[in-house]
């Protein structure tokens, strides 16, 4: 008898779910994307939930910049996300695929900068890197005596005598991360331009020579987050990893940062542009959802508030390099005017 009742209950529950589900409207902002932006967005989400008692605390997922934008472009409606976090600008292809799914009003919001740093274990040698060192250590082909040859370097000291005598193992983000694009644009490309034999090549061949990485196991691509990179460094003592500045700042006891062109990365040197490897951070708001999902516009405006993401704000403490006042005004004005990405 008891079993019969349970079966009845279960059927009733299933029926209820089936009826209730389509009528559901979402009242919590749903965010996904870049794992670099995730800590910042989560902090803002929490503070937002605390500051506005009438709105729920937004939910922030990860998945990388590309993964977030793919989810973002799945369409319009309560079962799609409202905001995609990205550590790179949206690509034309993504705007098109968004448009074909009905997402036409993509509002781009830039909210700060992030520095990308090279760091090694605190108990190993200190690195003073230049882009050309990183290129020479990482590329499939490097210049030797004016000719391109398969990369022969196995130790950093062979690349440049000023570098520590440590085995070359470079832990870099995989291509699902926006950080990878910055690594290629700001480190590898300038690095390979330093070599004449590559400069002489035509544009396509040059691009290929710059971004082709060696395949002999010395480059480790990480698809997960920076903790995975850190775990690699703990397992392979000689490895050098690519991190976000904020991650490095929270783990200074385990990591030491490499200088780039003689500049130590910090909030100041990145903010002033002196440290070369930095990138803007964005999030993309689905214009179609503004006014439908409660609190969406308020969240964006709260995010851009100086007390939230400006100098001296909790986000700066978490490692974000804030926008200057002018940039902040511009970002806010563009959002208020609902200026969509074309």
């Amino acid at each position, binding site marked *: 008898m008891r079993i019969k009742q*349970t079966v009845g209950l279960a059927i009733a529950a299933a029926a209820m779910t089936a009826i209730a589900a389509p009528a*559901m409207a979402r009242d*919590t902002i749903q965010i996904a994307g870049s794992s670099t932006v995730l800590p910042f967005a*989560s902090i803002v989400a929490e503070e937002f939930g*605390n500051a506005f008692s009438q709105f729920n605390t937004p*939910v922030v*997922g*990860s998945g990388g910049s590309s993964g977030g934008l793919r989810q973002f472009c*799945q369409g319009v409606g309560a079962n799609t996300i409202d905001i995609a976090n990205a550590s790179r600008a949206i690509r034309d292809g993504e705007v098109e695929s968004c448009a074909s799914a009905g997402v036409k009003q993509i509002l781009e919001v830039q909210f700060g900068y992030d520095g990308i740093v090279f760091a090694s274990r605190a108990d190993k040698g200190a690195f003073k890197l230049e882009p050309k060192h990183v290129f020479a250590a990482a590329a499939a082909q490097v210049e030797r005596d004016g000719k391109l040859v398969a990369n022969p370097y196995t130790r950093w000291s062979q690349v440049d005598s000023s570098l520590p005598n440590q085995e070359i193992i470079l832990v870099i983000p995989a291509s699902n991360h926006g950080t990878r694009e910055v690594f290629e644009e700001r480190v590898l490309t300038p690095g390979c331009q330093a070599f004449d034999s590559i400069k002489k090549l035509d544009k396509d061949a040059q691009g290929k020579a710059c971004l082709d990485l060696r395949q002999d196991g010395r480059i480790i691509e990480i698809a997960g987050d920076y903790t995975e990179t850190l775990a690699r460094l703990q397992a392979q003592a000689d490895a050098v990893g690519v991190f976000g500045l904020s991650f490095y700042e929270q783990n200074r006891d385990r990591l030491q940062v490499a200088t780039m062109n003689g500049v130590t990365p910090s909030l100041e040197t990145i903010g002033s542009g002196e440290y070369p490897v930095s990138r803007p951070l964005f999030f993309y708001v689905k214009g179609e959802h503004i006014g439908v999902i409660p609190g969406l516009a308020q969240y964006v405006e709260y995010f851009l508030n100086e007390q939230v993401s400006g100098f001296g704000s909790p986000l700066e403490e978490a490692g974000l390099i804030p926008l200057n006042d002018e940039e902040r005004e511009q970002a806010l004005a563009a959002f208020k005017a609902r200026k969509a990405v074309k």
Partner: protein
Amino acid sequence: MSNETLSHRSIIQARVAKSLRKRHARERRFRVFGLAAVLAGLAFVALLFISILVRGLPAFWQATITAEVYFDPTLIQLEPRPVPREGETPQAFSEREIAWQSQLTMVNWNRILENSIIALKPELANSRRDVRALFTSSERFHLRDLVGNDPSLIGQRVTLDLVADANVDVWVRGNIDRSLPDSQQQLRPAVRALADELRAEGVLNIKFSKALFTNPDSRSSPASAGLAGAFMGSLFMMLIVIFLAVPVGVASAIYLEEFAPRNKITDLVEVNINNLAAVPSIVFGLLGAAIFINWFRLPLSAPLVGGLVLSLMTLPTVIIATRASLKAVPPSIRHAALALGASRVQAVFHHVLPLAIPGVLTGAIIGVAQALGETAPLLLIGMNAFVANIPTTPFDQSTALPVQIFLWQGNELRNFFEARTSAAIIVLLTMMISLNALAIWLRKKFERRW
């Protein structure tokens, strides 16, 4: 003749005696190997448990500042909480309520926190920034909620346990190398000295961490991050699994075992159920994302969807376990019932099923325990998001316990979250072990031997 048999017998005896030693040696060898395998298995389990316990147990206690907080009326200038007026529309009332709430939030709670320490150490009046760094940032909302729930606190002095900042906790417990130079420390020298001073004076103590159990996850205030949200998410999912997978699974097992005709179709169904039991869980996650979210348009990150996906995953386990325990009931029970004039349904529900119940319960509980620990399918339906609310219905966004472990494992504040992650593992393992213990207890209680 007799001589011949005798010699024959002695030959056999000699051969047996010879092989006996070999056979005994073989048996001894097997026993030693078997025992060694068991011991190696136990050693690995022990190693795993000990390493988790050693790392995780300390995280159940955390740095807490016990101080007298003065809810200073000059700082908390608050109108009385609005009450519904006569003839007022609910909307107008909720607007006034929201205005009051935001006024409450705007109070400078940090200053009240700082004052609690400055009252003890007046010389710190000019270094408020250092004092504030002692407290985790959500403590200001803790004070706000206290006053929001009980405005009569204003003007009173209350001794409270306040959670210290995560980096203070790491520092006073020595989870960061205390001999490192300033450039590698997370806290400023002044804050470190202040923390040590308060610890020596007994203001800052290591106390049992309630935050771990009562709070949801937190990023802006890591020291107050807790498991309550993930726990509720897991609970909702388990309820859905219990109310969907168990009855459906048991019903289909009874039908297949007791009523279904033996033919090609039921054979096919049987093979498919066995295959489903072997499908990797991530596939169920993909299925859930495609069907429940994209097609049925159920919400992302909701325990409802997680529960449905996990139900699908648990179903084959429940069916197989139930069928096995129905098979184990001797046919004589069925025959006796039928011979006394019971219908087939009566025979099954009055006689066979009650005898099979221990096996069914064990199967169901082990299926539920398996679902409780499942992570992969949940990642695909958005349950790996950061959720700072405790869900109150299965439709609310939420995480689950194993996913929370995954998220904390990836938190950038390594010194603090390594221990926290192990603590979460301990909580999850405790739940698993209690579920399994329940299964064993139920089996023992209802078991019948023939």
